Every structure is written in C-alpha cells, then in structure tokens.
C-alpha cells in the first residue's frame, strides 16, 4: 500500500475500535437475550434499532432539545413496542421450528422498514449535534462517539446488574439455561419472553438513538446491525451474555484495524470474512456457548 503505519495510528484505531465496540456489545446483548430465552434469532433487531434512530431524529427536529434526552422516551416506547410484537406475533412461533421464527421476524422487518420508507421517506437524515472531536495528545476522539461509548457502557452495565442481581433478571437467566426447569420452578416463562423481547428492543433502540447522532440514518440502515449483532453473538458464543460484550469489542477493533490496512469499502466485508472464519474454526464462539 506504500503507507507506513505509525504507533499513533494504531493507538487511534484501538481507541476508535473500543468506542464502536461498546455500542455493538449493547445492541448485540439484546439479540443474545432473545436468542437465549426463546432460541429465536430476531431478524427485525436492526429494524428496531432504526426505529430508535428515527425517534431521536424526530425528537431533535421537532422539539430541538438535546437528542440524548430522547433516550428517556425512546427506551420505554420501544420496550412496549417490543412487548407488543412478542405478544401479538413472535409468541406464536416460539415453539415452532426455527424456520418459522426466522421467516416471521424477516416479514416483520420488511413491513416495518417499508412503513418507515413511506412515512419518513428514504432520504438520508442526520442529527446535527455535538459535531467535532476532542484532541487528547496525538489522538482525536469524536465527541458524539465518546458520548455514545459512555452511554452504551452505562446502559450495558445496568442491564448486567439487572440480569445478575434482580429477581426478574435471575428468572431471565434461568429461562435461558433451561425453559423446562424454569417452568418447574414456578417461573412464568411466557412473561419472561415478553420482558426479554421488550428489553432487547430497548437495547436496540438505544443503539439507534446513539447512532443517529454519529452518522446519517435512513430506513434501511438496520440490516447491517442485525448482521453485526449476530456476528457478535457468534464470536462470543450464542446464548453467552458476557460473550456478547467481548464479541462486540472484538468486532469494533477488527473493523477499525481493517480500515487501517484496507479501503473503507473493503473493510465492510471484513466482518463477513470474520463470521465465516469463526464458523469454520471455532463454531461455539470464543467463550464457548451452548452449541447450536
């Protein structure tokens, strides 16, 4: 390539990678939760992220208030949207072969994306807020990405505290270990499914809100995030919640490193190569998950 790579560049890449990775971890944790408790891969996960992004966009456009405050609205809103989806549609296919749930959530995703195309138009939109970067020594750190990192870490920490310490969180983990045993212990598994889908939707939409301030958004933005979230849970081991954190950070780093050596265009394909490689070499993920 003829470009010398200096230690500063590597440092910059590591910083950017970790900043992006925290966001991936948070979003992927949502997908991991749904997969953990129901064995359903939610193809509409990225679509829910897109809805969160638009909530933030319209909040900022119409009210002109700090876009990060929209999280206070978007999270509860998407929590209920998620519960509604689970209650009306997804619950019917939880016990069906996985073909059904994959196709169902794919159908939901197509319908929602095109409702968004129709109502928001397919124009690329952006939230003009907190542009520019901090300069720390030789490194530049984008302000919006730094805030996104902080918020994502905070939300992920709360989610983990919730899973570890609260009764409901323990019930969710119990259900993901074994639905039958959880049921025998008196856990209302259907209610757990409902909460898990709600929480997952809220996590996805939080990702969307943060992304909306960082980059331009449009209705079809979600698919990439569905794919990346899935890659993250494959990396970490499907159904392994701490694995999702590790996987997210790793994906962030690998993507940024790749952009150092390859063009931005090609680095989009790196995540894909990574998925194929992990599936070939270590299909149960780095931390080991429940095998398929």
């Amino acid at each position, binding site marked *: 390539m003829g470009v010398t790579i200096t230690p500063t560049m590597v440092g910059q890449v590591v910083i950017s990678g970790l900043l992006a990775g925290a966001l991936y971890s948070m979003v992927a944790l949502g997908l991991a939760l749904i997969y953990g408790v129901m064995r359903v891969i939610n193809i509409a996960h990225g679509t829910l992220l897109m809805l969160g992004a638009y909530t933030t966009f319209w909040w900022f456009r119409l009210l002109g208030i700090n876009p990060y405050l929209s999280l206070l609205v978007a999270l509860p809103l998407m929590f209920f949207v998620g519960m509604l989806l689970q209650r009306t549609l997804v619950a019917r296919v939880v016990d069906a072969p996985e073909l059904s749930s994959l196709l169902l959530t794919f159908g939901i995703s197509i319908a929602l994306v*095109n409702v968004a195309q129709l109502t928001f138009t397919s124009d690329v939109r952006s939230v003009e807020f907190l542009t520019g970067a901090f300069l720390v020594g030789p490194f530049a750190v984008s302000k919006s990405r730094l805030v996104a990192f902080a918020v994502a870490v905070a939300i992920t920490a709360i989610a983990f505290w919730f899973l570890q310490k609260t009764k409901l969180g323990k019930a969710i983990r119990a259900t993901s270990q074994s639905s039958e045993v959880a049921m025998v212990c008196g856990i209302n598994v259907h209610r757990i499914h409902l909460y898990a889908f709600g929480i997952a939707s809220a996590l996805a939409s939080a990702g969307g809100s943060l992304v909306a301030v960082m980059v331009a958004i449009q209705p079809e933005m979600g698919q990439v995030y569905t*794919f990346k979230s899935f890659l993250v849970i494959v990396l970490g081991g499907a159904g392994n919640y701490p694995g999702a954190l590790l996987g997210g950070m790793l994906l962030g780093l690998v993507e940024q490193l790749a952009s150092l050596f390859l063009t931005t265009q090609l680095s989009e394909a790196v995540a894909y190569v990574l998925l194929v490689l992990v599936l*070939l070499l270590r299909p149960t993920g780095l931390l080991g998950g429940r095998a398929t």
Partner: protein
Amino acid sequence: MRWAVLAALAIGLLLLALYPLVATGYGIRFMLQLFMWVALAQSWNLISGLTGYVSFGHVAFFGTGAYAGAILVTTHGWHWGPASLAGGVAAVILALIIGYPCLRLKGPYFAIAMLGLNEVMRVLVSYFEGLTGGGSGLSLPTLHASGQIYYAMGAAALAVTGAAHLLITSRVGLRFMTIREDEIAAEAMGINTERYKLYAFLLSAFVPGVVGGFFARDQGYIEPISVFPLLTTITMIVMVLFGGKGTIWGPVLGAVTLFVFQELVWARFLYLHQIFFGAIIVFVVLLMPRGILGVLQERYRLPRTI
C-alpha cells in the same frame, strides 16, 4: 388422470413455445420475466422449501451469475448462452465457499450468513472496478435477442421445476425433507446431513446464476444495485411461501400469481407493495404455513407430490 395431466402439460408447453410467433414485444418481455421469477422462486424452494434452511440472500447467486456472464460476454467475447452457464458455475463455486462452513451448523447461522452475503458481494463488485466497472456498471454490446432469451428463461424455469419434481419424488429428495423435519433423526437414520444440505444448496445456486446471466444479456446493462437488490430475495421468498414451500407446483403458482399481480397493480406503489410482501410472509407463517397449495392438498386430498 395421469395422462390427462401430462397431456395438459404438453399442450401448455407447446402453446408457450409457439407464443413468440404471435406475441407483441411487451408480451414476450412479460413472459420472459415471469419465467425468470418461476426459476428463481423454484431455486429458493430447493434449499429452503426442501431442507428447511432459509436463505435470506439468494439474490447473491443471481448477481454473481449476472456479473460473471456479463464479463465473459464483454471482455472475452463469449456468446451469452455459454457465458450464462459459466455464470451458473460461478454461483455454485460461491455457494460452496459459503455453504461449507455455514451448513455444518444449524438453522440461524446459515440464514444470517446469507443475509450478509448479498451486501458483501455488492461491496466486492463495486470495489474491483477493473473487472466489473465498479459503481458505473457494465454495458453489454447491443443485441436484440429477446426471442432467444424468452426460450432460454423458459428452459431454465422448466429445468428447475423438473429438478424439483425429480427430487420430491426420489430418495434424495426424501433425505432433504427428512433434514427439514428432524435433522437429528435424519442423522440417526444414517443420512450424511452435512453433505446433503450442501448438495441442496449447490443445486439451488446454479439456476439463479444462469438466469442472472440471461438477465444481464436481456437488460444490456448491469450495475451493483440492479443485480443485488434485497427485494429480489424477498420476492422469491414471498412467492414460494405464498404458493406452498416444499411442493413442486407451489413456487410456480406463487410466482405466476404474485408476478401478474405485481405487474398490474403494485409496480406503481413500491413501498406499499413491500409492506404487503412483509404482511404476506407474516400471514403465511402464522396462519397458512403450507401455502395455497398446502391448503388445497388438505381440502381436496391431493397427493403430496404435486
């Protein structure tokens, strides 16, 4: 009964073969696209309908075939016929690269790998500008071959429907369907599931590649967006689900119904059209999992192998 069906089929094929003699240019193009959709839907049916492994990125094979065919025609001066067959081979090679790691695992791994594949192919095709013309696309030399492409597309649709018939009525097809019903049981019965899943996948990739080559020749110009659209995959899936997955005639029925409907009504309302597609998928999965043909089979006690 059997002879009546065969005679009806033969007459139908004869009429379709003679149709270009009386058709207008629009009529030929309409039928040619209909054949293309039958071929694509039926190909998706081979992997997803028979083995139950959902491919969310089948258009990647279509696009790969289109590019391989178009490159051979423009830079190597091949005739579009063999070039399209080579496009099919290119699609099969791609399927082998993706299918080998992903089909060793169950369900969702394969589905999501396919979801990403299409994006990656689009990126790669845009990147290797020297070969593919990048974002500015690839123009094929002018040639009026609608009549020939009509027969070529028709042959592709017929071939893949014939393949579906051969599979569904044979032991190999039974192995595919056993994998769909219960993969562990299939393995316990001594079926090498890894190998048969890969066979089904390679089979299902070939015809979309060939048809992609025909499509490139027919359009005369291709670009990454025109041959790798997610909508094409969605359309294949909706057609098969609607008609009845895992059957011989379901994909044909679905393709004909939805394509005619699409041409007459929906082409003017792109987004509403796609919302409608999403709704069909949800509706069929929840309420009519075996599609229209499945409902008919149950009501009129038709044989499984139609």
